[in-house]
């Protein structure tokens, strides 16, 4: 599916050609690789590139929203050995499907962003770690890399400069935890993708023990556009502290699920309208605004929020990866949480006891509540488990598993209580998932 809507598009501005517009010649015709050329031939200093990114207040699009310019400035400058740039295209956070389309419709914007990153941080090699389940996109990215090599944008002495850079794609094989940056590095090294203790952070001890910077696909794709328009202009497209535009993957009960690019700070109501409104005209019940790890927000509250890091955080959730999961009144909060809890239980890498055991406990308790076997003290039990996971694990998957549980109980406690008391669901079985449209066709 191509882009379904945008306001002031940057990263998706080249998507109009769909599967026919991704090649190097198309990207170049759109002004692609001009910023790489400018940086190299006009000898823009690495510090200036980083200063532009700092001014743009581009925040990492992978989930944590960390300022990219600042992250790049952490890389040691006069390091004698190898340094690496790594792109995180492992996109496995349920609800997120923007990086897939970015690599499918405009892979060269990601490549150009990664080359400029290599230049700015003095790295000679980069890897793009691509989600296992999207083989066709991995193949396309490999083809795009071949094109870039043939055109002299990769390799030795790029565009006649003294800068040399190699870039390769690495295909994942199905492990959500490899989206966590140090799990990803372990995986790139040919091991199980089990996250590392931090510190040391990747900027000092990363891939093969060398300084490494990891960014999300969308973060890299934004870089050429930022250099083109200037840091401040980019910042001004969004709102203070939330620079630029962002891709939102809208899924669930809307008429037009898909990717949308909008300036940060755009009202959620506008995004919902762009996505064609609620499917079948049903009532909005709740929204998970930033991927499955983000706490749920009730519909009426969501309708008053804007889509940016600060507004969503203030409402008690997070913008995360920009995956907006929209649910109508036919969805049972307990059942929704049950499915998410199962996911985290399945995907815990098992290194830390609180996460390995805690995700299992949480899933089993929510599962029994959903199946009419909940016990009176189950909600207390759940509420006591979450703080024992949060902040007590090697990586943030533990938090990611606990946050949905606290979020759903906070806003939908009465539904959980109803299940426990009445041994059944508030939403009648035949109404549940009515919006799924599997049997009825997409318009219902």
């Amino acid at each position: 599916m191509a882009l379904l809507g945008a306001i002031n598009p940057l990263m998706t501005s080249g998507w109009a050609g769909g599967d026919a517009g991704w090649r190097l010649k198309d990207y170049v015709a759109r002004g692609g690789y001009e910023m790489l050329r400018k940086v190299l031939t006009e000898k823009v200093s690495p510090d200036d590139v980083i200063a532009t990114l700092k001014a743009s207040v581009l925040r990492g699009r992978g989930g944590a929203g960390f300022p990219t310019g600042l992250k790049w400035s952490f890389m040691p400058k006069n390091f004698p050995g190898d340094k690496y740039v790594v792109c995180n295209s492992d996109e496995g956070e349920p609800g997120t499907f923007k990086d897939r389309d970015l690599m499918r419709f405009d892979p060269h914007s990601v490549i150009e962003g990664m080359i400029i990153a290599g230049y700015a941080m003095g790295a000679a090699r980069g890897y793009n770690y691509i989600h296992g389940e999207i083989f066709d996109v991995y193949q396309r990215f490999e083809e795009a890399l071949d094109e870039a090599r043939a055109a002299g944008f990769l390799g030795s002495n790029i565009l006649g400069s003294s800068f040399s850079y190699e870039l390769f794609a690495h295909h994942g094989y199905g492990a959500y935890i490899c989206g966590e940056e140090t799990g990803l590095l372990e995986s790139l090294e040919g091991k199980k993708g089990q996250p590392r203790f931090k510190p040391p952070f990747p900027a000092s001890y990363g891939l093969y023990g060398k300084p490494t910077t990891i960014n999300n696909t969308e973060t890299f794709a934004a870089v050429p556009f930022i250099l083109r328009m200037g840091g401040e202009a980019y910042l001004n497209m969004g709102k203070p502290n939330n620079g630029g535009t962002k891709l939102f993957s809208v899924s669930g009960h809307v008429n037009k699920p898909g990717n949308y690019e909008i300036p940060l700070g755009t009202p959620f109501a506008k995004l919902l309208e762009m996505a064609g409104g609620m499917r079948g005209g049903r009532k909005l019940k709740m929204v998970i605004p930033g991927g499955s790890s983000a706490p749920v927000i009730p519909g009426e509250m969501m309708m008053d929020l804007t889509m940016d890091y600060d507004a969503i955080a203030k409402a008690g959730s997070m913008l995360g990866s920009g995956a907006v999961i929209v649910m109508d009144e036919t969805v049972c909060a307990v059942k929704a949480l049950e499915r998410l809890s199962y996911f985290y239980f399945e995907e815990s890498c098992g290194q830390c006891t609180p996460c390995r055991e805690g995700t299992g406990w949480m899933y089993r308790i929510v599962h029994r509540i959903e199946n009419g076997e909940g016990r009176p003290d189950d909600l207390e039990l759940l509420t006591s488990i979450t703080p024992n996971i949060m902040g007590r694990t090697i990586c943030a998957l533990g938090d990611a598993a606990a946050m949905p549980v606290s979020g759903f109980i906070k806003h939908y406690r009465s539904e959980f209580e109803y299940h426990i008391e009445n041994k059944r669901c508030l939403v009648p079985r035949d109404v549940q998932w009515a919006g799924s449209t599997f049997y009825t066709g997409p318009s219902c």
Partner: protein
Amino acid sequence: MLSESSLKKIDREVAKYPAAQKQSAVMAALAIAQDEKGWLDKDTIACVADYLGMAPVAVYEVASFYNMYDLEPVGKYKLTVCTNLPCALSGGAHAAEYVKEKLGVDFNQTTADGRFTLKEGECLGACGDAPVMLVNNKRMCSFMTPMQIDKLIEECK
């Protein structure tokens, strides 16, 4: 033993990494080996280990950590249906039920004729196209209505 053509493909992967980091190609090597053999038995794992200069147990650890490797025989077609929440909202869970009924198997089972193995998927990164299914780890099928599923199963001879 792996075929010449598989080894060639593995060589191409090894070349992506610094000379001292051959092990980085293990994921790709296992995927290539699985494509050739259908699944990863002990001998195949040993063969990959030998080729990359790794301990067999280290290769086995990798093979067992990632979901898309099969350490047991699977049918000619492995169908992975995503049932995670974003997909379920748009028919993913119903699609899985439909396939189960149609093939007469549950998740992680293979049909008696050895044609199909059914797997439950966790977010394939394509939730906007729900219901989605993956065939043999490679082919992504989008918007799988009952009719589309019937057609796919018909095609997979």
